[in-house]
């Protein structure tokens, strides 16, 4: 078997609420292979968003390790975190988080700017990705001129811009209608079929049921880890 693209070992996170310790994550361990499309589900407060923040280097664990593409990202210094984020991770957020003053193309372009990619290459790549997302004719539109589904597709294009090892999607369908939801999930599945590793955090069973693996969390721990054999 190949080296897993994501390796999580004994990951724990404890917050202090005043003087009371709150265990948001307790000893979480699992592996994800390249090209997997998995979902993390669980009720509010189960620790799934905290978990996503740890993998995305947006927060630091109390103990444990995360390896992405063989690199232990939990040991990264603050100055190294931006490089790891732009090289290894692509984020898709619930609220799309597009920059309102920039066009769709510029929103995709900005991720590559921070990776110091040359302008001509950035342009080429952003057009390529937006075309892949079916947004070629919407490239010069600002987020306010796009529908929720279109905005989320721009966000997915942005997440893919730097060819990350893994895409972390936090409730990517939380703000869209069911039709758009299905379209976004299909898009993510298609990317996964092409070898992109995608980890989705969701409440929505309709979304998780279309992924190939479901990790359920409860009280900061993994409750179950199921491979879905029969998919759509």
């Amino acid at each position, binding site marked *: 078997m190949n080296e897993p693209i994501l390796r999580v070992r004994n990951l724990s996170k404890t917050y202090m609420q005043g003087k009371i310790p709150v265990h948001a994550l307790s000893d979480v361990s699992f592996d994800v292979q390249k090209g997997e499309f998995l979902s993390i589900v669980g009720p509010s407060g189960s620790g799934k968003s905290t978990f996503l*923040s740890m993998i*995305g280097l*947006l*927060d630091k664990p109390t103990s444990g390790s995360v390896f992405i593409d063989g690199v232990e990202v939990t040991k990264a210094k603050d*100055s190294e975190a*931006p*490089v790891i*984020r*732009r*090289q290894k991770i692509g*984020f898709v*957020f619930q609220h799309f*988080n597009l*920059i309102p*003053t*920039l066009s769709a193309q510029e929103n995709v372009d*900005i*991720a590559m*700017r*921070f*990776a110091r990619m040359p302008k001509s290459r950035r342009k080429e790549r952003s057009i390529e990705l937006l075309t892949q997302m079916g947004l070629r004719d919407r490239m010069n539109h600002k987020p306010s001129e796009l529908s929720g589904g279109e905005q989320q597709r721009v966000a997915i294009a*942005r997440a893919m811009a*730097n060819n990350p090892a893994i895409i972390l999607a936090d409730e990517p369908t939380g703000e869209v209608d069911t039709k758009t939801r299905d379209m976004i999930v299909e898009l993510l599945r298609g990317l996964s079929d092409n070898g992109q590793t995608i980890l989705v955090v969701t409440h929505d069973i309709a979304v998780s049921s279309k992924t190939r693996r479901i990790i359920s969390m409860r009280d900061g721990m993994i409750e179950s880890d199921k491979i879905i054999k029969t998919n759509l």
Partner: protein
Amino acid sequence: MFDLILKNITQRKLRTGLTIFGIALGIFAVIVMGGMSEHFNQTFDRSISLTADKIRVFPEIGFGGGNLNESKAREIKRVPGVADAYGLLQAALDPESLGFFGGDAVIGVEPEKIPSLLKDTKLTDGRFLAVGDGYRTVLGSSVAREFNLKAGDEIQIKSKRVQRASSITHARNFTVVGIMEYTGSFFDNGVMIPLNIAQKFYDRGDTVSFILAVPDEGVDAEDLSKRIELNVEKIKTFSPEQLRKQIEQSLVVFTLITISAAVLAAIIGGLSVMNTMLMSVSERTKEFGLMKALGAETRDILYMTMGESAIMGILGGIVGIIGGGALVYYLNDFLASRGTILFSVTPRLLIISIVFSTLLGVISGLYPAYRAAKMSPMEALRYE
């Protein structure tokens, strides 16, 4: 990244405009006040350079007060090391309407001493005074422009004489025989007339206002100044260096007052940049968090936020320079018709203004940029 900076600036046009206006007002003040200070400094430098080689001799009781007999010039001339010494009589052109900035002055001088007094100053019209000239005059460029005179015209000079308890004003027309070129010195506001005519017209007998002593070539003016004081009674000398120091001291105070006022105005402009940038950073908290999540480094965020404030500073500087320059131009034009110029916008002042406005923008943007750069991406993304 520069295009992103420009996009952010132009996105909030009214706010950006008001901030730039704030900086522009400050730089406007720097140009106007600084221009005034520069002009005084230039006039002083040019005036000094015309008479830098001469020692000024005044009556012992001080400037303006008391009379200095012309015979003192002969005594001074006998002091070893003195090449020449001659008296000058100075009076206001119109004693009844003295301007705030001194106004025009009549200078009585022996015609044969003019080459020594004015060095290589040339005429734009007519001739210099000649021995034997009566009520004739050579005008400085500003006086000629103020009264719109050329060689052959006449100018009225007034003298005020105190008789018993009352003063009587006499007026007399002098024929203009020459107009001097612009020198940038106080001679531009001068009306030169023959010394003997000045003494008669102002009823000053054979007295003068002060004497200029010209040192022999190679003689140290400082030493000679002391020797003159030792050898000639009831006089006080001012060497070129002493005079320079004294005028510089008064100019330093003036410069400090004008520049402080201007800098204060500019700092207020800087605070408006800081306020705008703090608002902007606060509004874009989520945006900065997102950028960090996308891999932006601290330096990227610093560059973007400080770039915005620096550009606002530069634009404010340019607008302030244009506004201040326009006002100074029209004021100078207006004042020129009244025989004076008050402002000089020098390349040095322009460079100082633009550097100052840029620095102001950068410094004012430091704290907001630091706040933006230090944001935790997770907290910033959660910010609503």
